[in-house]
């Protein structure tokens, strides 16, 4: 029996498609947790990244912060938060997920805005544009591809870590893997792994698609 057999067994079993333990429900749970975590992270990191990038200040602090944030072990933090907050569920899972996603978004946004070619920015300023217009109409469109790459890597890490969150009784696709391991049903484990990997690939594809739609063709060509 190889991995492919397990995958076909898992997906052809009708019981896996219905109810609260069914694939559609688990998939929705997973996507929901990821979207909330990513939304909170973006709401924190994007404004700070845009502002610091625009003023060009705070690079050292951001670098130190991102090093510290990356050093935090997400899985350990997940278990620790569950124990400390005395509760099981989404809240303790949100903290490590947000801690994980803020750093890449913040640092790439800062770098993206800061590394925009100064010539058009100076030109915009010379034309009398308001600093806000300079940021949103000149710097942001040029920096968008890099900002997207930061969001994408944050999203991928969130999807991956939300899987592990099943260990502390959060729903989502990780449930299949964790429960399967506990019950020694390898079909479930491999099926869950396939679903998670698939979701991660869909995430990349979505980001690629949104980037095609949102990034100005001129910026894309110059890259």
């Amino acid at each position: 029996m190889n991995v492919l057999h397990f995958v076909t067994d898992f997906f052809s079993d009708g019981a896996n498609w219905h109810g609260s333990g069914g694939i559609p429900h688990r998939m929705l749970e997973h996507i929901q947790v990821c979207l909330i975590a990513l939304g909170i992270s973006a709401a924190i990191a994007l404004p700070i990244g845009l502002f610091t990038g625009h003023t060009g200040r705070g690079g050292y602090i951001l670098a130190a912060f991102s090093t510290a944030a990356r050093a935090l072990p997400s899985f350990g933090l997940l278990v620790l938060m569950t124990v400390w907050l005395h509760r099981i569920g989404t809240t303790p899972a949100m903290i490590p997920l947000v801690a994980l996603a803020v750093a890449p978004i913040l640092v790439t946004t800062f770098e993206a805005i800061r590394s925009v070619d100064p010539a058009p920015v100076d030109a915009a300023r010379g034309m009398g544009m308001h600093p806000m217009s300079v940021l949103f109409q000149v710097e942001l469109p040029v920096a968008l591809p890099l900002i997207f790459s930061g969001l994408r890597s944050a999203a991928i890490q969130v999807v991956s870590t939300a899987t592990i969150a099943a260990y502390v009784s959060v729903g989502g696709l990780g449930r299949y893997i964790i429960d399967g391991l506990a019950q020694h049903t390898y079909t479930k484990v491999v099926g869950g792994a396939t679903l998670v990997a698939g979701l991660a690939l869909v995430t990349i594809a979505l980001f690629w698609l949104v980037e095609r739609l949102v990034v100005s063709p001129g910026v894309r060509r110059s890259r």
Partner: protein
Amino acid sequence: MSAYFDIPSDLQHSYTGLIGVHLKEALLPVLFGLVVALPLGQLCARFKWLYPPVLWVTTVLYAIPSLAFFVVLIDYTGATETTVMIPLTVYSLVLLVPAIVDGTRAVPQETLAAATAMGFGPLRRFLQVELPIAVPAIIAGLRLAVVSSISLVSVGTLIGNQGALGNLLADGLFYHRTPLIVTSVVTTALLAIVMDGLLVLVQVLLTPWAPRGRKGARRVRSAAQEPDPGAGAAASAGPAALEDAVR
């Protein structure tokens, strides 16, 4: 204190033993990744058509969640350390290849031409000119790879106690001993910060020509002699300015 460092006997390691296992499981993959990424990065830098497909494949591999990667490998390599180290090798590779390609591409053409004119052969030129100039970029990649690898080893506890310090998390939950969980988290974070610091030190030692600290940054800025405060802000903006000076 003993509540924090009294490791349950089922882990078959002392506290320092766990640290040793953790470092082995985290650093060996990065080393393997570097061994594969160096030639691969060189090839990608030399043959431009090769880079986009390689980048595409590595992005897809990086997206595969660690837990999914681990459990699929159980079928082939069992619940062993190898099962933990194979995905970590792949992730390291993914982080290192772009770093090496960017670092190699950042070597100025004039420098290469000068080396060739001085009679350097391709191998000597690579070892004595291209590689040293690419060091800051490669170390930047290594720092990312090492820190994420140290963090991810802990997940190995889910596939049958292969997570070194991560095994303390499972034991802490199982025996209701929160101090063990704190020990695991703090030690793992400290390991990551210490290894990151060591890599920065290695970079300082390997690139003695790079300007150092605030004094160096000021020298770079005054050398650029920019009267316009707007453009001056761009030149003074910290690490990247230093990096440019290195290149």
